């Protein structure tokens, strides 16, 4: 790559393990699990009854510019943004300086919530005889009186990224959707913008609140979720032979990316370098990864090439590692294709074993943890790893974290539709 070096100067999270990235990381390397029975609603009759929820009060502003922070997704991402900005010690830009700042956020799944579809449905289904008896316009006129309907604008409008743009003082706003790869996609897009010289500082990441009455049964119907309902803490078990699907997780994670020159000029503390990124699409099937991991390997190879690094320079792979049968086997195969013999030497772990799958925020949270791994030199474990699977034959850092020097982490994110993104995080050297 020939453009500006891209560095990370701040991170902010609101996730099941907490709202302080240092504390979250400490809990992660201790192998603490936040996958439990769902409390958001009575899931006792649901096919999957397990979720990884934010079970604490989140501090976030009530209103940002014209946007009311009225639902959990907005609260999480506004809170995470606030923390990232403070951590980076970078105030909101004003005036012309906003033109050099951008927001790239992945926010795609939060709105699909039956809780605010319910009031509409009751009006639309005025009676069995005349299901469209009620008038939707009347409903919208009355919506402010319905506390459950406060999320209706979110049903249509994505106000999370614009709200974050006001917090950060950014003149550019983008929303990425590449399914479970979206969080990493947002970070890679942000890095690319800086690298091309289009921005000096970009706040990027994702937010997702998929533990809902619609999405939990929906993903169950896609046979993607674990049904280990009587043993929720062992439900997310990436790369284990007895894995049976993932666990939905919720939260938000963002990071402040800057050009090296911009960060140094303002005296920022540089946490790590975002050294390379790669995108690919399997162009195969909508729900299954390519069985030979072709697209996954392609994006890992591209990320390494863009970082100008050899496979042997990767010290740790932070895997997508969903705990589904197809993904984990295909990812294992792809890591071997991309890294060659080094695949058998490098520790590969899945953070999802401890907080499930944050879908649109997954890559962003796991990216933040990758940076922490470089800073602290402790590779997180893959917990619940009990029975080896012949199709998953790498070193998955089973159950116990590992102290070791880590200079570079390859972070994988793969999504439905075969959309893949890999990002290389590297120790910063001036």
């Amino acid at each position: 790559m020939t453009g500006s070096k891209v560095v990370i100067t701040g991170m902010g999270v609101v996730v099941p393990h907490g709202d302080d990235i240092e504390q979250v990381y400490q809990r992660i390397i201790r192998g603490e699990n936040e996958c439990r029975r769902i409390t958001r609603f009575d899931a006792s009759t649901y096919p999957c009854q397990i979720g990884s929820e934010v079970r604490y009060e989140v501090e976030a502003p009530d209103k940002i510019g014209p946007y009311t922070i009225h639902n959990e997704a907005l609260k999480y991402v506004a809170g995470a943004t606030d923390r990232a900005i403070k951590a980076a010690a970078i105030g909101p830009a004003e005036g012309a300086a906003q033109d050099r700042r951008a927001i790239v956020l992945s926010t795609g799944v939060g709105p699909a919530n039956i809780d605010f579809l319910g009031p509409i449905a009751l009006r639309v289904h005025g009676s069995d005889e005349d299901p469209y008896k009620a008038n939707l316009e009347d409903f919208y006129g009355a919506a402010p009186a319905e506390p459950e309907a406060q999320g209706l604008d979110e049903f249509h409008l994505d106000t999370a990224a614009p709200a974050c743009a006001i917090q950060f003082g950014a003149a550019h706003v983008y929303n990425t959707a590449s399914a479970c790869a979206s969080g990493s996609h947002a970070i890679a897009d942000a890095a690319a913008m800086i690298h091309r010289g289009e921005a000096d500082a970009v706040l990027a990441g994702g937010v997702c609140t998929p533990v809902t009455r619609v999405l939990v049964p929906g993903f169950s119907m896609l046979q993607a979720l674990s049904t280990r309902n009587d043993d929720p803490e062992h439900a997310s078990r990436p790369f284990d032979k007895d894995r049976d699907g993932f666990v939905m997780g919720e939260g938000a994670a963002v990071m402040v990316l800057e050009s090296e020159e911009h960060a140094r000029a303002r005296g920022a503390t540089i946490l790590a370098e975002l050294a390379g990124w790669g995108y690919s699409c399997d162009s195969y099937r909508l729900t299954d990864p390519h069985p030979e991991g072709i697209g996954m390997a392609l994006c890992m190879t591209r990320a390494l090439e863009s970082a100008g690094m050899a496979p042997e320079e990767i010290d740790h792979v932070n895997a997508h590692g969903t705990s589904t049968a197809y993904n984990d086997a295909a990812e294992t195969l792809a890591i071997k294709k991309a890294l060659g013999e080094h695949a058998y030497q490098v520790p590969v772990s899945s953070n999802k074993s401890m907080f499930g799958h944050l879908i649109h925020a997954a890559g962003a949270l796991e990216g933040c943890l990758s940076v922490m791994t470089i800073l602290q030199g402790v590779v997180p474990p893959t917990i619940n790893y009990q029975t080896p699977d012949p199709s998953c034959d790498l070193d998955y850092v089973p159950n116990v974290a590992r102290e070791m020097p880590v200079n570079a982490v390859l972070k994988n994110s793969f999504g439905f539709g075969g959309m893949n993104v890999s990002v290389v995080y590297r120790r910063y050297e001036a």
Partner: protein
Amino acid sequence: MSDSSPRVVITGVGVASPLGVGRQAFAEGLTSGRNAIQDLDGRLSLVGPGAGALVDVSRRDYRNYFDTRLLRLSTMTRQTTLGCIACGTLLEDAGCPPNGEVYPDRGAYLGSFIVPPDFAKQARFAALMSHRPENQERGYVIDDSRLEEALKVASAFDFLRALPNMPSAHLSIQAGYQGPACTYLGSDSSGLQSVGMAVGAIRSGLAVAMIAGGAFCPFQEVHLAWQQVRGLWAQRAAESSPIRPYGLGRSGTLPGEGGALFLLEEREHALSRGATILAEVTGFSQRFAAPGSDDEVAVRADALSMAIDQERPDWLAPSGLGHPDLDELEARAYEDALGSELSSAGLVNAVPQLGFSGPAAGPMQLAAALLVARGEARIAGLDVEADPDCASLAAAGGRDGRTGAGSVVLASSFSMDGVHAAVALRVEA
């Protein structure tokens, strides 16, 4: 954009529009002056404006545009389908139809918008999960124990196809493209945003060719009703010309569906495969300002100025919705950005003919302007009595700009949501 970066050109246009499907049919539809706005029927007539423009392609003809065995209709929303139809015409137009091969260095970006499909089914699902307690006039109670019953009206595909990345995932599979893929969301400007991001991807070496544009279907009850409450739709849908951009007495726009896509390529790649180069993308810009903020005009003007840079536009393709406030903001922004250059440019506004297709509207306008600037289509002037506050753009509506090689197009999407994008093209011979 630095001079050392690869130049990015357009080598194909794909359109699924209410005026016709494919580049030639779209051009003929524009030239004919035909108005595709029609009364809506069924449940769509019960909400919103009661009129709109639909793409007329029968289900059995889908196979003319994409492989329905490879891309199953059960996995598609209407906007995904429109994207795939547009993509089929695009790949033919660009001289690279799907051939079973995969292309690791080509990708697909699409602007779209989250409108969950099949609201009737969703509402039924929600209704089956909810009830109003006896002796209570308002409110509802969700009963989770009724999930099993509610799930009988749903299938796994309902959830899969509603995932927001599905439109671009389908395009990648359809074309066999293994490069970057993403659906850009969040605003009505995301179609032009995807064009800008695709240009960036090519210029930074991530791909040699990208499909980019937008696809959208607004015909979902809740979406129509919501936009009605926001004041987007025209109040006099029954009139023969309800959409009156920049005119006195304008009251809003009407919904239209469609998809408009471009094949963007690195110039050298296009030349090496013998492709016909239609235009070069010379500029892109994007700006955000929260709705209601003091700098709404300035931010829009900045987006235009940055995209057009030092060039003099021959054709303007603004949003042109016919909305009382948005048109005025748009006209003021064009005046601020272009000054006297505005007096020589012509206006392309297909919105009165084919309605407003949200994130697909920017690419649709860009496609129309490209065809007009190339001399492949003509577009009727605006049939309105000009609003003095929008006089500059209204006047452009009665004027022809320069056509042919070297002519410059400036297209913009100014959204109600505060995200604005602009793209500039220079026509090639």
